[in-house]
């Protein structure tokens, strides 16, 4: 599998997020206070809100539109609500964040 370098871990602010723009829509890359990095498609399972714009706390993000809380590791919704944001696999290598090439550059059928 081809892995593409999308930037440095240091480019994402702790307790924050950045997006990677793709033809399929944005991917949100999160970094927790503890320095863990996760990636989810930037769409809340509730009403498609941009999760990248939420407040990151612990290993969760709160969607800015209606305050759904999403677990960063699995993309699953926490608390009473149900749903799951789509997860994007990442790899970390020497301080760089890598994503699978087929996710970033899908081939036309």
């Amino acid at each position, binding site marked *: 599998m081809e892995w593409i370098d999308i930037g440095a871990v240091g480019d994402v602010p702790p307790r924050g997020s950045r997006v*990677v723009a793709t033809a399929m829509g944005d991917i949100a890359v999160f970094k927790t206070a503890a320095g863990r990095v996760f990636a989810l498609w930037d769409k809340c399972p509730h009403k498609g809100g941009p999760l990248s714009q939420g407040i990151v706390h612990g290993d969760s993000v709160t969607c800015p539109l209606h305050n759904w809380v999403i677990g960063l*590791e699995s993309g699953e919704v926490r608390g009473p609500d149900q749903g799951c944001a789509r997860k994007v696999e990442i790899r970390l290598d020497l301080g760089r964040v890598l994503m699978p090439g087929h996710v970033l550059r899908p081939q036309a059928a």
Partner: protein
Amino acid sequence: MKKKLVIVGNGMAPGRMLEHLLELSCDDFDVTIFNAEPRVNYNRLMLSPVLSGEKTYEDIITHGDDWYAERGIALHKGRKIENIDCAAKTVSAADGTLASYDKLVIATGSVPFVIPVPGHQLPGVVTYRDLDDVEKMLAAATPGAKAVVIGGGLLGLEAAAGLKMRGMDVTVVHLMPTLMERQLDAPAAHLLEQEFERRHISIRTKSNTHSILGESKVTGLKLEDGTELPCELVVMAVGIRPSTALAKASGITVNRGIVVNDQMLTSDPDIFALGECAEHRGSVYGLVAPLYEMARTIAEVLVGKQAAYSGSVMSTKLKVTGVDLFSGGDFAEAKDREEIVLRDASRGVYKRLVIQGNKIIGVVLYGDTADGPWFFDKLKKGEDISEDRDMLIFGQAYAGGTPLDPTAAVAALPPDAEICGCNGICKSKITDAIAAKELTSIDDVRAHTKASASCGSCTGLVEKLLVLSLGDGYQPNAVQPMCKCTDLGHADVRRLIVAKQIKSIPALMQELEWQTSCGCAKCRPALNYYLLAEWPGEYQDDNQSRFINERVHANIQKDGTYSVVPRMWGGVTSARELRAIADVADKFSIPTVKVTGGQRIDLLGVKKEDLPAVWSDLNAAGMVSGAAYAKGLRTVKTCVGSEWCRFGTQDSTGLGIKLEKLMWGSWTPAKVKLAVSGCPRNCAEATCKDIGVICVDSGYDIHFAGAAGLDIKGTELLCHVNTEEEAIEMIEALTQLYREQGHYLERIYKWAKRVGIGSIRQNIVEDSDKRRACLERFQYAQTFLQVDPWAERVAGKDAHEFAPMRAFPLAMAAE
């Protein structure tokens, strides 16, 4: 015949390896050691006490010359190996010494990383690695001289503390936001930073070195932000790089370090690599525990045992006298992990265990590290802790015991035990008052005894005394906690911020014993506001604790685009402004332009990455952010007043503009909307606003606490004043009182209901001293807040917010 074992390097790892080897077999090997350093084996970990003067070099020698002689080991000090001939199985030193081997151990260690900034070669720039470095530092360490340490990791902090003990004036410059970020979580790092500040070692985080200044020697250090720190000594402690040049030149496989398998063998089956130069399963280690484990493995493999090194979990202790800090394992957060946090603010203790599947996988301890090894042992053994879980965090002393009843502990206190330190109130005074005056609540006790009325940190003890005295008769009045991270309510938090002089979110979470490590989306924005409101000019706004709208100064819409509302002072605009708005709408294809209820214009559907450019154009036409997104001053709605209206009694438009110009930029607990009507017909609808003014012939009626949203409520009359100046003064003072007393997200009408209209009138109208004090605090805060956030971002602030990390163009998909 004995086999020939040659070791290149004589650091701690090979020293330990030899000890193991000699234990296992004395006679199998002829050992020869080449060491580039002209010394015997010493304990590098103890360099910091040598630097601080707590130990001498002799104290830290592990193996003296005799040790080698007694064991028949040939030690070549000061001879650097320059070549390995793997085919002939020989090594040769710089001076021509040649040695052949059957087995070779490369233990070349690592070299300190030197940041190649301008000036890095000047005399006075040192690294921190060996005794030579320590000697160079000591030579420069005259009392009162200034030193800058680059790097707030383990070594950098030890160096800083050591130099400080030698009387130097020390500053630590650290690139990351928190100290020792690889070993500590943010709360523990914060405590550490406080401790260093207490020792008058100044810490600058998020600081990047631009250059080292000086002609013939160091005279200072310049940071990226332009700050210059004068100094005579610069210590670089920014990390290490495995020394692999020798191995690489000899054709041995090298990645980041010298690649070894689980037997610590390199790509050559007769050559081992050991210590900081080795790379095992992708990891390079810089701490001593894993190096010792590697050393044991090599010794066992050498004598033909089945041995394998399988990587290490590491723990760290900072060797600075008086700082107790322990960390080990993995303490990051994740979904299937839980944490147990214990904070004892009065003792400065923070303990955090990270639990996964009933096992400890991470430990961070600060202030009390006695149980560090005990926790770490459980971690390494993977012990199931479900049995002891309730008492686990209290450590070994309480392990397996029955949980202590905290009320019983308070009952056992003698009558003269001090409960409230602030006011010097002892236990019997409180219990007597409860009995004599039939007190039933914390507030009663505070009113009658003053206990817990100051800083409030004894509130828990006083509550337990109420329980003891009243039994079930005590009903703690249920304070709604701020969120699940704490038991404290908003009022307690605000009071404690003042009482304890808390000035940052990490400090607050430690002092007030937060139950999560970094809060949640509910408490963080509230805390950020409270600190901002309490410490104008001092508190550093925490962007990541703000809701997105306040972080990017625009309003997020359902599709993820933003809306932009420029200020229109008092609702008055001009042809030039309108033209600029129209141009912006065209230029950025903004789909919707709408007039708002607050008398201004909303541009809806702006793409996030366009925001700075949109603002730039609006700024150019003289417009600033309307703060339509803020828990802060929003709009001042006006009618045309005496300027045009045949019924107008005063210049309501003019007053509205004045108020808006004085009050914009202010952050408040919730949004604040004002209106000024020029006559009682009230065309500006001032009587349903947070604060409203109705102009009359004799002056100004000032109203407040109206609502026209979820609730509909007419305003209350605060007072009548005769002049415009008095009206402005009242309104600013009222706003400040609200800023200081309001709970986060509590609009003015709810605040007024909670504290009482009477108390507000008392503070603002009747007591002119209090009014003046409020007014002054408001005006002082405004000196820091009236900066246009749009212009700041046009100038480049928070640029990362508005640009994707990386973009993959659409065209790629269509190929």
